[in-house]
């Protein structure tokens, strides 16, 4: 009998599997963000808020992406229950977010700031609701889930020369192993695939998928061209350049190692859109770390592995973010923020395969409930990618 790897997760009534069991407090609009944060803060440890800057003054695709991202979090398997906090006059409709949660069989309620008579009353009512929901979730137990139920988000940030040599190829080996076992992984940051597209396109499962990848890369380049701007203003970042990275092509070739060396590219999806296929998916996200992680978690990733060279602190409200570095100075200097040190690869004291075995075990442990550094530190950054200027 073969023993398959698995983790202890929360099996949801919609069939999906979560690695956390949060009470999500979602503001429909920036005006409801403070109340949502207060409700979540008053509901420890399960309560988390999604404070954001949008929800009104938006048109077309920008409005659609904001709504779909908030809806994706309401549907996410790491969320056990939802409280929607509305102002009352905004574009994003509280009822439609609540309907999404209901379709996924999650308990949900709505609090309106105008309807309740202001911030204090809405905070009080919302806190009572959130605490009652947390009480029902507290009794739920983790059950064994096959590793193929895992969707892993692949992220790098604050890259330096060690990223492409150590942490990214370590993560790539974990990606290959997970995909071999029937799991899923998602790679974002289109600007950081630019220059390495031939590596991923050669692994596309069919010409249409390869064409889809090139289409989103061409769009990013076209947008930079339409602005008349040189993408070098931000890619590589000044920190990347100090760290020894010269061009976006170099950064991309190193970054793309996160996607493994053999995992077939199965799909290319839009920002925060559902990741529906096993294997490797590319998501159309910007390179800004928090917007990128926000989108990939929205797509259904239940765990994020974030490689860093120079060190970055950011997390996510509902998904654990594992920080791994190949830079020994960062591992020592930012030890509060780092979960896994793979600098032995650079120092020649550990092989990539051994580091990947440690990272795979870390992913399983974190999926089963062990807190990450970002979770312990309260790093719960959330930022929705904006497509148009606010009107």
């Amino acid at each position, binding site marked *: 009998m073969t023993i398959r790897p698995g983790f202890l997760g929360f099996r949801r009534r919609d069939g999906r599997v979560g690695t956390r069991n949060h009470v999500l407090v979602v503001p429909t609009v920036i005006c409801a963000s403070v109340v949502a944060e207060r409700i979540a803060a008053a509901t420890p440890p399960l309560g988390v808020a999604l404070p954001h800057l949008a929800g009104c003054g938006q048109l077309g695709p920008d409005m659609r992406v904001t709504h779909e991202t908030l809806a994706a979090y309401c549907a996410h398997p790491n969320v056990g229950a939802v409280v929607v906090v509305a102002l009352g006059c905004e574009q994003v409709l509280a009822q439609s977010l609540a309907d999404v949660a209901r379709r996924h069989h999650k308990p949900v309620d709505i609090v309106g700031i105008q309807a309740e008579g202001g911030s204090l009353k809405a905070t009080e009512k919302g806190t009572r609701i959130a605490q009652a929901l947390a009480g029902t979730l507290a009794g739920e137990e983790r059950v064994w889930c096959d590793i193929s139920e895992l969707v892993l988000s692949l992220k790098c940030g604050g890259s330096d020369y060690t990223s492409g040599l150590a942490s990214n190829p370590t993560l790539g080996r974990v990606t290959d192993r997970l995909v071999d076992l029937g799991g899923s992984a998602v790679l974002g940051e289109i600007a950081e695939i630019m220059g390495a597209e031939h590596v991923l396109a050669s692994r596309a499962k069919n010409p249409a998928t390869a064409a889809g990848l090139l289409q989103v890369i061409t769009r990013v380049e076209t947008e930079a061209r339409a602005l008349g701007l040189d993408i070098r203003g931000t890619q590589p970042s000044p920190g990347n350049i100090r760290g020894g990275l010269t061009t976006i092509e170099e950064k991309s070739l190193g970054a793309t190692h996160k996607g493994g060396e*053999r995992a077939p590219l199965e799909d290319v999806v839009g920002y925060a859109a559902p990741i529906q296929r096993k294997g490797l998916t590319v998501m159309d996200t910007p390179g800004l770390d928090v917007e990128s992680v926000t989108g990939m978690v929205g797509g259904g990733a239940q765990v994020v592995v974030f490689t860093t060279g120079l060190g970055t602190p950011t997390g996510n409200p509902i998904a654990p973010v594992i920080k791994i570095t190949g830079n020994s100075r960062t591992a020592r200097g930012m030890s509060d923020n780092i979960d896994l040190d793979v600098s032995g690869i650079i120092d020649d004291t550990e092989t990539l395969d051994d580091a990947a075995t440690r990272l795979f075990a870390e992913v399983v442990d974190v999926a089963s409930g062990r807190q990450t550094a970002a979770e312990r530190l309260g790093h719960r950054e959330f930022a929705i990618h904006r497509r148009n200027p606010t009107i």
Partner: protein
Amino acid sequence: MKAVLVISARDNVATALRALAPGQRIDTGGTVVIVAEPIARGHKVALQPIASGGPVIKYGSAIGTASADIPAGAHVHTHNVASRRGRGDLGVPATGLEARLAEPPDDPPGRGSDIPGAPTTMSKESSS
């Protein structure tokens, strides 16, 4: 620890794993390069002369174009390498995407590891 790392046999640059000093001799398995100028840890050194306009190759793929003649042993960075990607300031369409796709993902079999693109193809070289 090794002084430099060459990732692919096709590469014409190596990554310094510690600071390199002028005059330092680096042997990358056949090619001997004398370091021409101080090169910081994590930065790149040219393993052979790269003519202005020629490709700078790391990970077995072009990471940009030499914007000046680069002698062997020189520091290779933003002062002598230009990216051709995402250059809206050039006012011309993105070029080279099709040529890029025609490139092999990495070393052909037999030149490194059997896994294309795998950093196991690293030929770790020490300075002597």
